[in-house]
């Protein structure tokens, strides 16, 4: 069959839906989950309603830093519809006032001693309906004794700064951790004899995942069986179950976590938030199901933020543009509690890949993380565990170097890319890039953009005083954690199970440990199984998000579903197929070695008329009559896949912007994205992921920041203040791809979910800074709002923090 690969910008019509090729395996097909989503029939946590269910609302602190003097709950308790009012002191009596974070720190479920960020959880009310619960919050009287807040991250380590974490024994400052990677001395040696060095401070502001669906849960503790069922907005249901077992002391077999449809996660639904724990406690206390659903403001001001790095970048290079070393010193704002959801050995996530896509002599990073009176979080928002920051640093720095050398930034990158024969390539910070062929990807993006023509156009426009910019980023991602020997979350190894069962009629159900939040698992995983065993995707049910009915695994974040669970799905299918082959040999009365596999059936080599389909085999496996010696009935298997390495997708992005010289408004005119995520399973889903990530990038680069005033009040508590880009702000994305399979992944696939979020911000910022070159501007920090761009044009650029 000839498969027509439509260009990204072709529009499907009802008669010719290029995205619906109904493949048995890889290729474009419409998403199996979409019929319910486009009809508004998804079932989210807040759609769960149980008989007798009560509603929980949380009282939050108006102060960023204050001691709690007293809490009077009597008026709230007198509200006729209120069933319970609970404070931190009451939780403390049961040892539940504090809980572990995913970084082995602790976080208050409800504040007992003092509040440490504005909107921290102080008390909760359970009432008959949502309105009464919210009304009763106004009846709780809390007396606070305000303390000096630590808001400016640059002053957090000052000797006179207030100590935020006085709950930690012996804590005398606001230092969270120091982390180093690479070789300090070797890097210094390269800098000492380099012809050119450049240095630039750059800030990746605090941003927020801001998923369409906020966090929510329904906790139902059955009084008779003692079993807890928790419907929850979680990206990692199995990991959450284990953590609840360890924290609450509930036996793990008595906990069932159900993650129903999830309206976006982006990392924000990896942590366990106080609201979930409060709902569980409330259900335990009252003996009825309890729902907690946070509102938009609560989501923006209290759940896991992302980024918040002040990075000083340095590059050592030769005069002719050979990049020799990269060094960085980072000050990381972790908020009031270290809630980063990184693998334990990686306190800065995978920031170590800040060496980028370049062949270096040396590299070094020193990072200090500090506590401030801001909401906790840290790794969230499609960042591949801090690679967003790393890629921004190196790709911005390469442009700073290009500015200093007066060299074309494309040429400079091409001169330094790791060469194909160097793979697997070990970076100076110890990461082993599995595969790559970078230059063709870069050349393809340049060809699609018409790079030379764009530069000519820019030169003409500059003559006329018009401001046009061209920005490039070339990124390498590291996605698909584990392996388990290196990577774990709170001691749980980052490996994933998968189970496949073929029913007698040849229909299948595949059970995943990972949970989709919009990535299209129900389609992609059906296609992976289909490709391996020849059952059409529509005959394969993908089941996930229920810990009682799926094998253990670590969840969906860091683009790990396809690299880890996708591999598990392929391998478990091969295991089933191996058994099918033995059964087929019995049915066809030939040896296993004499069978030939044509996707969906085994035939006798040299006699294609003698064949059995996978459906025939499934019926035989369950049917009457004997199976070959030693073969059990049934056609199913289960495995747990432990990846031997991460996968390293990469891409070349080119952004074209126009800046209005009078108003300083930035218009993203074109954006060319060439991605390489290895083997492509469903190109339409990949394009969708890329489109979403690129749009995220426009948001971060041009309009978003979670900012605070000097008292620690969060100024981005609504979507009126924290802007989500719309179709109006983005161009018609021009996507392309190259394919460099991963050598260790069974089907050669790499993750794609975060590539565009990682790769696009530097391309956009580089384009804006390039447009402002006539003003002598070498760097400007995000978010590049019209006001900030105009101030930069006046020579008044100020960092956002």
């Amino acid at each position, binding site marked *: 069959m000839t498969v027509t690969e439509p260009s990204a910008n072709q529009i499907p019509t009802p008669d010719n839906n290029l995205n619906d090729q109904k493949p048995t395996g890889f290729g474009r097909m419409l998403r199996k989950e979409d019929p319910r989503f486009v009809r508004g029939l998804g079932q989210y946590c807040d759609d769960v309603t149980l008989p007798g269910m009560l509603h929980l609302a949380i009282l939050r602190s108006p102060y960023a830093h204050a001691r709690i003097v007293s809490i009077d709950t009597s008026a709230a308790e007198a509200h006729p519809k209120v069933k319970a009012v609970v404070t931190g002191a009451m939780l403390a009596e049961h040892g539940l006032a504090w809980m572990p974070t995913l970084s082995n720190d602790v976080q208050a479920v409800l504040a007992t001693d003092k509040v440490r960020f504005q909107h921290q959880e102080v008390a909760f009310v359970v009432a008959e309906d949502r309105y009464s619960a919210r009304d009763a919050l106004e009846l709780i009287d809390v007396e606070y004794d305000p303390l000096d807040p630590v808001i400016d991250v640059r002053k957090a380590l000052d000797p006179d700064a207030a100590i935020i974490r006085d709950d930690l024994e012996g804590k005398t400052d606001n230092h969270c951790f120091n982390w180093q990677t690479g070789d300090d001395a070797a890097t210094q040696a390269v800098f000492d004899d380099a012809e050119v060095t450049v240095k630039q401070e750059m800030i990746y502001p605090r941003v927020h995942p801001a998923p369409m669906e906020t966090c929510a849960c329904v906790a139902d503790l059955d009084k008779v069986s003692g079993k807890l069922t928790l419907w929850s907005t979680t990206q990692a249901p199995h990991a959450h179950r284990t953590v609840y077992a360890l924290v609450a002391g509930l036996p793990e077999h008595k906990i069932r976590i159900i993650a129903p449809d999830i309206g976006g996660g982006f990392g924000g639904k990896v942590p366990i938030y106080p609201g979930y724990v409060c709902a569980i406690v409330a259900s335990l206390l009252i003996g009825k199901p309890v729902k907690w*659903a946070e*509102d938009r403001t609560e989501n923006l001001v209290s759940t896991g933020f992302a980024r918040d790095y002040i990075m000083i970048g340095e590059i050592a290079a030769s005069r002719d543009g050979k990049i020799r070393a990269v060094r960085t010193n980072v000050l990381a704002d972790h908020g009031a509690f270290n809630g980063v959801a990184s693998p334990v050995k990686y306190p800065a996530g995978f920031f170590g890949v800040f060496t980028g896509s370049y062949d270096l002599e040396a590299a070094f990073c020193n990072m200090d993380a500090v506590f401030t009176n801001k909401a906790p979080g840290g790794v969230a928002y499609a960042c591949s565990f801090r690679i967003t920051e790393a890629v921004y640093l190196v790709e911005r720095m390469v442009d700073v170097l290009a500015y200093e050398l007066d060299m074309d930034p494309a040429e400079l990158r091409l001169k330094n890319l790791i060469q194909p024969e160097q793979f697997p390539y070990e970076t100076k910070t110890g990461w082993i890039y599995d595969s790559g062929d970078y230059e063709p990807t870069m050349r393809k993006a340049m060809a699609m953009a018409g790079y030379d023509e764009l530069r000519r156009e820019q030169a003409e426009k500059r003559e006329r005083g018009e401001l046009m910019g061209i920005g490039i980023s070339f990124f390498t991602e590291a996605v698909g954690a584990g392996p388990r020997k290196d990577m774990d979350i709170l001691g749980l190894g980052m490996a994933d199970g998968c189970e496949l069962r073929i029913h007698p009629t040849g229909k299948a159900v595949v059970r995943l440990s990972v949970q989709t939040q919009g990535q299209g698992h129900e389609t992609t995983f059906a296609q992976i199984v289909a490709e391996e065993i020849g059952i059409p995707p529509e005959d394969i049910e993908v089941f996930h998000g229920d810990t009682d009915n799926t094998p253990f695994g670590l969840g969906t974040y860091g683009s790990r579903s396809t690299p880890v669970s996708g591999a598990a799905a392929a391998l478990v299918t091969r295991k089933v197929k191996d058994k099918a082959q033995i059964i087929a040999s019995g049915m066809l009365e030939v040896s296993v070695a004499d069978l030939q596999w044509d996707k969906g059936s085994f035939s006798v080599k040299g006699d294609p008329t003698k064949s059995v389909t996978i459906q025939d085999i499934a019926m035989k496996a369950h049917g009457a009559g004997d199976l070959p010696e030693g073969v059990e009935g049934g056609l199913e298997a289960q495995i747990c896949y432990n990846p031997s390495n991460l996968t390293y997708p990469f891409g070349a992005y080119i952004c074209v912007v126009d800046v209005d010289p009078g*108003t300083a408004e930035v218009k993203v005119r074109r954006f060319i994205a060439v991605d390489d995520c290895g083997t492509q399973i469903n190109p339409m889903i990949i394009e969708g992921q890329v489109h979403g990530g690129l749009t995220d990038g426009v948001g971060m680069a041009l309009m978003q920041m979670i900012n605070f005033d000097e008292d620690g009040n969060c100024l981005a508590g609504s979507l*009126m*203040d924290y802007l989500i880009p719309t179709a109006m*702000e983005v161009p018609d994305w021009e996507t392309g791809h190259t394919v460099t399979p991963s050598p260790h992944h069974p089907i050669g696939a790499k993750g794609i979910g975060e590539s565009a979020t990682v790769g696009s911000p530097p391309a956009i910022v580089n384009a804006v800074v390039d447009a402002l070159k006539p003003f002598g501007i070498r760097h400007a920090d995000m978010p590049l709002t019209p*006001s900030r761009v*105009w*101030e930069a044009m006046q020579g008044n650029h100020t960092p956002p923090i």
Partner: protein
Amino acid sequence: MQVPAPFEYERATSVDHAIALMERLGDEARIVAGGHSLLPMMKLRLAMPEYLIDINDLVDELQYIRFTEDEVRIGALTRHQQLLESDELAAIFPIFRDAEKVIADPVVRNKGTLGGSLCQADPSEDLSAVCDALEAKCVIRNSSGQRVVEMHDFHRGPYETAVEDGEMLTEVRIPIKPNSSSAYHKVERRAGDWAVASAGAAVTMNGDVIADGRVGLCAVGPNLTNVQPISDALRNQPPSEELYARVGEIAAANASPATDTRGTAAYKTHLAKELTIRSLRKAVARATGQEI
């Protein structure tokens, strides 16, 4: 989901009924029309009215765009979308379509109303600047009759208007002048965002000179801008880039913006000038038939 505090709700069956309800319920009652300012404030509990009087049924009395010889009368319940789509309105006052295209988004425009926008009196609200530039007059009704006030008297300050308790805005009247046109320019961080700053201009030509011109500014200070010096500078002047620049300087000098997350005071002051120039340039081009 953000939930408002408890409140009582009544649907008015006529303007007289609505006014009678307001007189009876006092200052704890609020009129709800499109609800796109009031309801978000109630959900955030920034506003906690005890009574809502819903006037959305009063389409016959309050929703219209009527043209007479010398003025346009627009009912207070006229939706943004109707202002955007009216070709007749756009032909005479293109500033309305310019502004409505960049006010919020289609969902808001389908419900939000002219009267609601003016009565909310948000300093960043676009239609106040538009009506200011067009020398609009506001008709306010109470149980004893109605009065007509100029935009400058109507808009008393941030979130404060000449509409007293027991009164409601029912109509906006805009004078139609020959040889005139108008334009609106806005800078926003994102489609649907409030203005960082915006400016609307209306000019009346007399041959080769500007007989009369007005500029309304938005989001550059707590109150409507004092447009008189701008009008004085434009009167009987031939249009030119130099004139626009001079008037832009006056607009900037009259602006008193505050620094916030949308932009610095310096930038907004610059925009007062830049957007005044752009809107004047376009209004004159339209009035002289050089541009639509």
